[in-house]
């Protein structure tokens, strides 16, 4: 794979060099070489190269798709995610059609109308009809896109909370995440960084009754098919909770609580069976095996084989270890989730251990 890419780059570079050589060679003829203004020969060569460049642009895009079309994210694992994916597809299709034609016109005209001594250009300064057409077409197309986009956006961002909504606080700090579940009462206890002390890492108000059944964990578990409302907080600087597979992202801002909600629809287990993703994981493991061989040869430990898990990444520059601020996300069935939850310690017990003793 890498070898192929290197070869590809070398070929493309070679083509560039070859083109350069040709320019040099042809422009070194004696006749018109005294001037730094383009001669007919320059016009001709560069006109052809413009045509070639347009084709290069298409070819490069095609190669990117062919080689790397499969690195993009697999289908969305959240309910609203498919809406985003559809909107993305529509926008992309539009971009490709418009891009293809305009680049073709640009490249082809550059070639077709390359200069020649004595040729006469057309004095064409204005045409209201034409300009009206290419003003009104973008207006209509963009109006459609705007309306479509706004409906999707409003749909995603206007959270309607119901009894079944799971409330989870995502807590960001340099350089890790914590998740706090609201517990049986589904209400998060009050919290403020001024209360941070010892084990009370999130600054939860230990005297708040709502906080007693809260659960703080460092691995995010979500039951499939149930809406989750995330309340984001940050302890120090800006962070961004990015969950690419769920098409979800929201900044964590010190001093305020931000929110984002989605419904996971695919469990981790099911996602691992997704064809696209399975193929990707297989490729990744091939790469890791190759790299491991090199490491072992150097006397170092081989890399662990990779199994897919959803992840939460920090996506807002937050300091030196920004590149490694992550949390695993597990989507599982309601039963598995409940079983896992039952094993977790309640915050009340953690913060007020004396009361346990009394009881």
């Amino acid at each position, binding site marked *: 794979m890498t070898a192929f890419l290197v070869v590809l780059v070398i070929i493309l570079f070679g083509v560039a060099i070859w083109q350069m050589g040709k320019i040099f060679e042809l422009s070194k003829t004696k006749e018109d070489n005294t*001037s*730094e203004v383009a001669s007919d020969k320059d016009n001709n060569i560069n006109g052809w190269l413009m045509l070639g460049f347009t084709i290069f642009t298409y070819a490069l895009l095609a190669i990117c798709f062919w080689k790397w079309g499969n690195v993009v994210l697999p289908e969305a694992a959240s309910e609203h995610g498919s809406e985003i994916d559809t909107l993305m597809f529509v*926008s992309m299709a539009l971009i490709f059609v418009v891009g293809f034609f305009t680049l073709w016109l*640009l490249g082809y005209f550059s070639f077709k109308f390359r200069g020649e001594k004595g040729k006469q250009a057309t004095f064409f300064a204005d045409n209201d009809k034409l300009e009206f057409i290419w003003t009104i077409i973008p207006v209509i197309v963009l109006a459609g896109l705007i309306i479509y986009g706004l409906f999707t956006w409003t749909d995603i961002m206007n959270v309607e909370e119901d009894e079944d909504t799971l409330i989870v606080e995502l807590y960001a700090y340099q350089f890790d995440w914590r998740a706090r579940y609201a517990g049986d009462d589904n209400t998060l206890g009050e919290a403020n*960084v001024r209360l941070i002390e010892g084990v009370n890492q999130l600054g939860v108000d230990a005297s708040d009754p709502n906080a007693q059944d809260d659960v703080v964990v460092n691995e995010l578990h979500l039951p499939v098919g149930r809406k989750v409302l995330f309340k984001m907080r940050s302890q*120090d600087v800006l962070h961004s909770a990015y969950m690419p597979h769920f098409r979800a992202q929201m900044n964590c*801002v010190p001093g305020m609580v931000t929110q984002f909600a989605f419904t996971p629809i695919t469990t981790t287990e099911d996602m691992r069976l997704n064809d696209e993703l399975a193929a990707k994981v297989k490729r990744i493991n091939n790469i890791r095996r190759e790299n491991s061989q090199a490491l072992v040869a150097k006397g170092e430990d081989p890399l662990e084989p990779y199994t897919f898990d959803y992840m939460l990444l920090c996506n807002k520059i937050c300091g030196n270890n920004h590149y490694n601020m992550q949390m695993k996300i597990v989507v599982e069935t309601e039963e598995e989730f409940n079983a896992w939850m039952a094993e977790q310690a309640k915050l009340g017990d953690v913060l007020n251990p004396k009361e346990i003793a009394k009881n």
Partner: protein
Amino acid sequence: MSAHAHATDAVDHHDDHGHHHKETFVTKYIFSQDHKMISKQYLITGLFMGIIGIAMSILFRMQLAWPDHQFTIFEVLLGKWGEDGIMDPSVYLALVTIHGTIMVFFVLTAGLSGTFSNLLIPLQIGARDMASGFLNMISYWLFFISSVIMVLSLFVEAGPASAGWTVYPPLSALPQAIPGSGAGMTLWLASMAIFIASSLLGSLNYIVTVLNLRTKGMSMTRLPLTVWAFFVTAIIGVVSFPVLFSAALMLIMDRSFGTSFFLSDIYIAGEVLHNQGGSPVLFEHLFWFLGHPEVYIVILPAMGMVSEIMATNARKPIFGYRAMVASILAIAFLSTIVWGHHMFISGMNPFLGSVFTFTTLLIAIPSAVKSFNWITTIWRGNLQMNPAMLFSIGFVSTFITGGLTGIILGDSALDINVHDTYFVVAHFHLVMGISALYGLFAGVYHWFPKMFEGRMLNKNLGYVHFWVTVIGAYGVFFPMHFIGMAGLPRRYYTNTEFPYFDDLTDVNVVITIFAIITAAVQIVFLYNFIHSMFHGKKGPKNPWKSNTLEWTAEVKHIHGNWDGPIPHVYRWAYDYSKLNKDESDYVIPGQDYAPQHIPLQENEEEMHH
């Protein structure tokens, strides 16, 4: 031609201005008040900063492509942050931060707009100099001081600013959060504050000059599109830069004087800070109120120059002059009300997100009109493929490919998942980085003879420079969209902590190889630039057979630009290949252009522009 006969009746007190007083080395080359010299000072300072900025990008690209590899060059260039050839994470962030700052402000704002506004505004409107040569000189020297401070900040002990070029607090406000937020950040803010002062002085000068010093006959509707672009750019600068200044000032207060504009509820390094009630989102609003118009400050001058160069080299009028002016104005207006599209997921009210999506996608309309008009301009032209023309065509290409992905990022719903990924990096590099650079190169190739007294850049080196650059630039930024859509966040020092991204290593290698090739070929340009400055072939007075007034000015630089009286203007700037009434020949027989200072000919139909 009869032009001079008509023009000489103008009474002009400055007729032989340049001959009276001898200039010393200091007044001519250092503290010069002459707009032509100041423009060269801007350009050379900008190019110098550009070399630093691009070299930095190569360093961090190498880190991204080969994270496990040890490079001696890291040790040589980065010193204690590159021990054993391994780049330190903090210096990685510093490199991306300073790369962004330098390229956006020092190269593409000052180096592009500063250079060409200074060179072309007086020459193209027919003025002897800027409205205030003194302010103009101050403006350059403030820019120079801010450049020096920015470069010096690279050498402070804890490292330069490293909170990203957007310097969002609290990261940029707290040295506990990242080492670069200590003295490095202080210098960054000082440098930017001075930069803003420089930019404001420059912009006010440009505005006044365009409004007041146009020669007789040069109505606003006869201005070349370059001048329109510089003029509107200056207005945007005056409207938005002061807001950045206030943001910088408030950040300085938060950092040094204990205020809480942007800070609240922070627990860091084991203690709670006293700050209460501020909001980082406020900083984002203030920053992007400049930050977004800033990208148009960068791209509008390039658009103006491309329009001018395309018309000249196509030997055709720019298509839809009025629509071009209208779209410059529309873009300028809209640019000040779209800043929120950088903040869809910042925690601001989602309703605002809807509003900003609406205004953002609106901006695509004037952009589309401009693109179509450029394409129509080359349709049925007689294209003279000079390097400047090639870069102009390249500009339209990258403006289209980069601009189209803006439709995705401007859509709040789609932004959720590509925000702050490499998709954004690819988008803005193509649409404002590479495009503006092409505009800069086009301008340098086209107006080099005007800057260096008739000397021209070597065209063959120009062709090599162009073709390798355009291929390399797409080679860098096309693949980058894909790693963005794979969910790879930007500003990660290495991606090895996520096995999920292991299959992106190849792509990163390809991107880096293209980046190195593209950066390397800029050396060809630098060589050409420096060599031609002293040994370039002297071309004719009007080498590109252009219509605008600068080509009627003296080739040799004299203070006051025109040895005789200032030419008067009788027509717009785009009478290329215009035929006479009976279509038997061009309006000036045998010459396919009619410069602005040529009066209307007999047998010529007047156009109303």
